[in-house]
């Protein structure tokens, strides 16, 4: 009881520190309060309000994420096991500022280019990037033919604060416009993981890029109309979708629990390495537990 009383005195002392807010004890070691670091439930429990006031998300983006949620979890919120166990977080960002648009050119089938700025403040240091895509969603019929070959030219610029906007060599990507037609909503994705990976690894807080498309009819599908140019009109600016693996303790690591399920006995033996229970002691332990079971 003497020791425990001592412990309580230490604990009481910690509680009495004037500046230590209860939830600040959970702050990350580097002192920066990253919104995503604390599970939102902790934040709401401690700062009492129903979360800080929020900007309303783009309705099409919200509709897409609700559809993604239905695909990944049950109505009660239990994660389904029908998808890759590698990522446990998906974040969708809409461009916070849409800059000038260069006009398109129907003769060459190029769409107007769009300048985009994404603010990634809510991506935390413990969230590792696995895949990122630009997501174009349509809510009505699109003017693309059913099959077209498009080249997406992506130019990533330095953040605004740097004096010169260093234009990196444009990296162009060929992708097939195989749209996913589900009911009345359609969308297609442009995979931009490769150019974004170094930016995410350096924890850049915003990404400034310009995107444009040049599309030609797919020869195999549509030979007679090859020469007729077609007008490529894309809907509003794309959203940026990030598939991340949150490595914090409070996030769900499916691959970890799958591994434990498969090898329950090994995992305990694994924990108790050879140094933990030398031969003699281990065998005595074995005998004792079998006697206990009996």
């Amino acid at each position: 009881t003497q020791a425990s009383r001592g412990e309580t005195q230490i604990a009481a002392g910690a509680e009495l520190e004037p500046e230590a807010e209860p939830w600040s004890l959970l702050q990350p070691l580097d002192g920066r309060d990253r919104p995503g670091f604390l599970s939102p439930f902790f934040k709401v429990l401690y700062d009492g309000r129903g979360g800080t006031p929020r900007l309303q998300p783009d309705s099409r983006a919200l509709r897409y994420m609700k559809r993604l949620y239905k695909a990944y979890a049950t109505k009660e919120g239990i994660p389904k096991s029908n998808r890759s166990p590698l990522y446990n977080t998906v974040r969708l960002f809409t461009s916070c500022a849409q800059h000038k648009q260069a006009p398109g050119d129907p003769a060459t089938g190029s769409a107007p280019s769009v300048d985009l700025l994404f603010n990634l403040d809510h991506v935390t240091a413990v969230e590792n990037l696995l895949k990122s895509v630009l997501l174009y969603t349509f809510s009505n019929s699109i003017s693309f033919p059913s099959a077209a070959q498009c080249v997406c030219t992506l130019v990533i610029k330095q953040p605004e604060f740097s004096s010169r906007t260093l234009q990196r060599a444009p990296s162009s990507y060929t992708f097939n416009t195989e749209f996913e037609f589900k009911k009345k909503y359609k969308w297609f994705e442009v995979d931009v993981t490769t150019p974004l990976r170094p930016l995410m690894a350096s924890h850049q807080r915003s990404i400034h890029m310009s995107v444009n498309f040049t599309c030609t009819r797919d020869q195999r599908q549509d030979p007679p109309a090859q020469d007729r140019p077609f007008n490529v009109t894309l809907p509003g600016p794309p959203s940026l979708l990030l598939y991340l693996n949150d490595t914090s303790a409070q996030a769900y690591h499916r691959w970890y629990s799958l591994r434990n399920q498969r090898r329950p006995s090994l995992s305990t033996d694994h924990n108790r390495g050879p140094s933990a229970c030398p031969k003699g002691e281990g065998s005595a332990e074995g005998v004792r537990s079998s006697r206990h079971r009996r």
Partner: protein
Amino acid sequence: GQETVSLALNKPLVPASLNLSEYFKQFLFPQHECELHDYRLSFSQLKWDNWIVAPHRYNPRYCKGDCPRAVGHRYGSPVHTMVQNIIHEKLDSSVPRPSCVPAKYSPLSVLTIEPDGSIAYKEYEDMIATKCTCR
């Protein structure tokens, strides 16, 4: 000792009014045994529905009830639990009885709106109790 034996034999084993199964039940199954209970929560009750889009209903479940004295076999409790019971009953009642607490959890998927309007799908560990134990 014959007279003590005959005395003991004459004493009724159980009160006449109580039948045998009832009599033994009080030893085998405590009335409010430790078990899992539901608590269906909707985030609008907590006024969190302005930032938690899904799920609409969340049932974290919880453990409640009395821990039977011989808990070793039924709850997967360690032998320590029985030792704690004995200390509470025989030596020092300030040592609490074992408590009925969750032993296993399942994760929860949450769709939230961040302050800047971006949308996040996240899976959190240990958000729904799935099994109880006495510890």
